[in-house]
């Protein structure tokens, strides 16, 4: 989760695979960890290009297994969320899971870059410096401590939240020393000055790497234009100007006010009894400074629509379109989630993917999504396309969105998206890692413990009109801030689309 190793990240990517669809959305938006609804990395080409198959289709045998699916609601892993508060006010969410001899601990602090004040990058540096030193141990001794136990320490910071996590074996001889070390690292870091200099150098090198990453350049510009003077405007990693000025005293102050027991949610999943979980959570909370929750950032004001182009020598042009979206607790969340699944949130099979990739071959992938945050997070649409058709593609995307807002999703699109969300529900709590993520979000955004069920019911009850109305309450076809990054080249017209496929009746039983 740390953002300090550009090269190893790159290389890892290289030895990985060429994959048919991008697994997840671009990292344009704010809170990578904030998705509470079933993560939609479904990748599925669509009912597109079926013009050819249209005739043959009549004679095609239907897949017989579909007809045999029954109508029973899907079972899913039982999720008995227990919750309590520690001394000092830390909120704990816990799920017992004894199947594997391990546990996951995740602390989520309201200590993201929206709390930076006039020192962009302060929250990120504080988070990155936690494991650089404690009394009697330097950074290497801390790393050796975790690693000799087989424990994984993780950290990362975003706009709203800062996360510190531990995954460890649950046997007492591993768990106890791991939790002991973790508590000290989070609660009593020493912030050694030589480490700070080193990490600042690495961050500055990271800025150099960013200059070769057109997607990142677009994202930085998008937040700047969307948020103006709001604390979400600046990048979480700070700027080349702000980073050198930050000193150890600022880190200490930030830690004392933001890494407090009153400002954290402790999510815990694994092979622990309730009693063991209580002891563990109390130990972690006791190690933290005392203090209250930090206030949420103010509501941002609506930006002026604009189009900014950044010249960049690349083969493709990156297109990023954005508007202000919603806060995580907005009552329209379920309707917007559902609407966006149909528009561009579900990977393949969405309106945008169908029009831009499947019918015209203009992009490898196009995604839209709300990133709900403490206050209004962004709604963004991102894609990359060949430079000589970028203008036509941008216009096409805007037309697709405008039509979607005007007409709403079709009944069929809505039904399909509802079924998809219901069908993927069991996947959203399948692993301990999935569950600890859900607990972190529920706790951090102060949602009810039965939130996952509530969300599912709300989604299933929505009508086309309700979804359309909600989309139009928050988005406007003319309201986009647009950022393009790429070369200036002569533009060509778009290829003609393949024939519009016939809308097929759904063949999947409803749940």
């Amino acid at each position, binding site marked *: 989760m740390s953002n300090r190793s550009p090269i190893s990240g790159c290389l890892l990517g290289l*030895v990985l695979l060429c994959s048919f669809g991008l697994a997840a959305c671009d990292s344009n938006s704010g809170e990578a960890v904030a998705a509470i609804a079933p993560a939609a990395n479904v990748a599925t080409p669509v009912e597109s290009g079926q013009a050819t198959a249209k005739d043959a289709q009549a004679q095609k045998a239907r897949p017989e297994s579909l007809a045999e699916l029954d109508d029973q609601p899907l079972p899913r892993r039982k999720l008995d969320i227990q919750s309590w508060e520690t001394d000092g006010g830390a909120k704990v969410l816990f799920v017992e899971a004894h199947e594997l001899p391990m546990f996951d601990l995740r602390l989520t602090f309201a200590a993201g870059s929206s709390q930076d004040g006039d020192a962009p990058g302060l929250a990120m540096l504080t988070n990155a410096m936690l494991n650089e030193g404690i009394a009697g141990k330097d950074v*290497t001794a801390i790393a050796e401590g975790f*690693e000799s*136990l087989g424990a994984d320490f993780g950290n990362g910071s975003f706009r709203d939240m800062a996360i510190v996590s531990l995954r460890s074996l649950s046997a007492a001889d591993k768990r106890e020393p791991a939790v002991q070390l973790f508590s000290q690292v989070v609660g009593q870091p020493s912030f050694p000055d030589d480490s700070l200099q080193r990490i600042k150098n690495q961050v500055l*090198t990271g800025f150099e790497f960013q200059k070769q990453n057109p997607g990142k350049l677009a994202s930085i510009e998008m937040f700047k234009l969307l948020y103006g003077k709001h604390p979400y405007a600046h990048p979480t990693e700070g700027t080349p100007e702000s980073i050198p000025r930050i000193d150890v005293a600022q880190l200490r102050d930030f830690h004392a006010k933001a890494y407090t027991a009153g400002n954290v949610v402790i999510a815990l999943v694994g092979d622990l009894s309730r009693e063991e979980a209580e002891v563990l959570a109390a130990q972690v909370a006791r190690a933290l400074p005392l203090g209250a929750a930090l206030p949420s950032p103010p509501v941002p004001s609506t930006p002026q629509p604009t189009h900014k182009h950044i010249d960049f020598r*690349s083969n*493709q042009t990156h297109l990023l379109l954005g508007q202000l979206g919603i806060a995580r607790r907005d009552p329209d969340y379920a309707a917007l989630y559902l609407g966006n699944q149909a528009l561009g949130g579900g990977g393949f099979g969405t309106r945008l993917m169908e029009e831009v990739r499947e019918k015209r071959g203009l992009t490898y992938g196009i995604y839209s999504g709300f990133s709900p945050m403490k206050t209004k997070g962004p709604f963004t649409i991102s894609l990359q396309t060949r430079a000589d058709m970028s203008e036509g593609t941008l216009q096409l995307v805007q037309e697709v969105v405008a039509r979607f807002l005007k007409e709403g999703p079709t009944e069929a699109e809505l039904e399909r998206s509802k079924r998809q969300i219901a069908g993927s529900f069991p*996947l959203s709590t*399948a692993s301990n890692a999935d569950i600890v993520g859900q607990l972190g979000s529920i706790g951090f955004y102060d949602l009810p413990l039965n939130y996952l069920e509530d969300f599912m019911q709300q989604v299933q009850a929505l009508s086309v009109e309700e979804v359309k109305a909600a989309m139009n309450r928050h988005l406007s076809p003319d309201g986009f801030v647009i950022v393009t990054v790429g070369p200036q080249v002569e533009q060509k017209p778009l290829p003609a689309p393949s024939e519009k496929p016939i809308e097929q009746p759904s063949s999947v039983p409803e749940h």
Partner: protein
Amino acid sequence: MTPTLRRAAALLLATIYLPLVTAADTQPTHEFFLNNGLKVIVREDHRAPVVVSQLWYKVGSSYEPPGQSGISHALEHMMFKGSSKLGAGEASRILRELGAEENAFTSDDYTAYYQVLARDRLAVAFELEADRLASLTLPAEEFAREIEVIKEERRLRTDDKPSALAYERFKAMAYPASGYHTPTIGWMVDLERMSIDDLRAWYEAWYAPNNATLVVVGDVTPGDVRTLAERYFGLIEKRPVPDAKRPLELAEPGERRLTLHVKTQVPSLMMAFNTPSLATETANPQQIYALRLIAALLDGGYSARLPQRLERGEELVTSASAWYDAYARGDSLFVLSAAPNMQKSRTLADVEAGLWQQLEQLKQTAPSPEELERVRAQVIAGLVYERDSITQQATTIGMLETVGLSWRLMDEELAALEAVTPEDIQQAARAYFTRSRLSVAHVLPEESSDE
């Protein structure tokens, strides 16, 4: 370290983790063949009512002849464009509606397709997968569009990504003799001249049940899976497939150097040594496990040697990594990469010398027992953590089987790593970290002169 201490260390390592091995008990795993030669492996994981189904084909970019680079990956794309029961994109629409996660991936050694879904929908995944194995449509006009998507994918992931572009060129140099030379996405010139007939021939050559492995992990029983597999895959006929040669390399091709100027702001260094893999070093697999431990000693965590010594100690690099793939179908590479610390005015030459120093130390001094223990503790815990994800378990099984090893290795890995002695590590370092096995790339910003 004295010989006595070394023995003591080895002994300690051999015994200390016994209690944990029990804790990390293996999960019930079953394998069987259908009559048409399709191998099926089922691993039970009953924690949640979900299941992952993966179909792995023994074909990938290392199988491709010159001029046809990228054809395995292009065929993977076309596998979503229709078969006897399904129109183009329809299988994906059905799966999406079922709430399934699905995708596919291609690499040097394999092409694989997967679905993750609620357990009572496994039959749908099987039926759709079997249909495109038996009867892919391959419509020409779909291909005309899809090849444009693939070119965009290449522009996005390689041409416009300096580090990926550099690695593509570096890999082509580091594998002079074998198909690992070939980039999985394909060279642009080959994408330009690829035809639907090429794809059809490739599909007919390699997509046979006897050239595939079906891996199922999740809340299922082997009996249920067998029934479903026989029903949907059982009728597909066995076919002869071409004889696939293991990608073998020259053991010592000679030192190779490459200077690349790319659109980057930050220079970086890559080094790779030609090495065998577990599949090609059958006489002395100990050496392979020793190389795996060396990768972990160098880069297995924040306390490992590269971050500790080069990143933090000398502040020579802002990042460095070491990586070794023991599980290739053919010969492999041990790869190191690093970016110099520009704030401290370090050059690529400094970094290259610094990395060599670490390699020389491995040759001269055996690692301490504490250091080795730490590495093994991470491996042992990793085996437990891996079991939290059904997809990860299935991927490990499928990958091992497809490169010609056995899924059983994943459960035996621990014992194999524990048998490695400090001397083995020294020996492996001496054998493989030599100039005659070395490829080096200096990756520089476009405007600058070398160094």
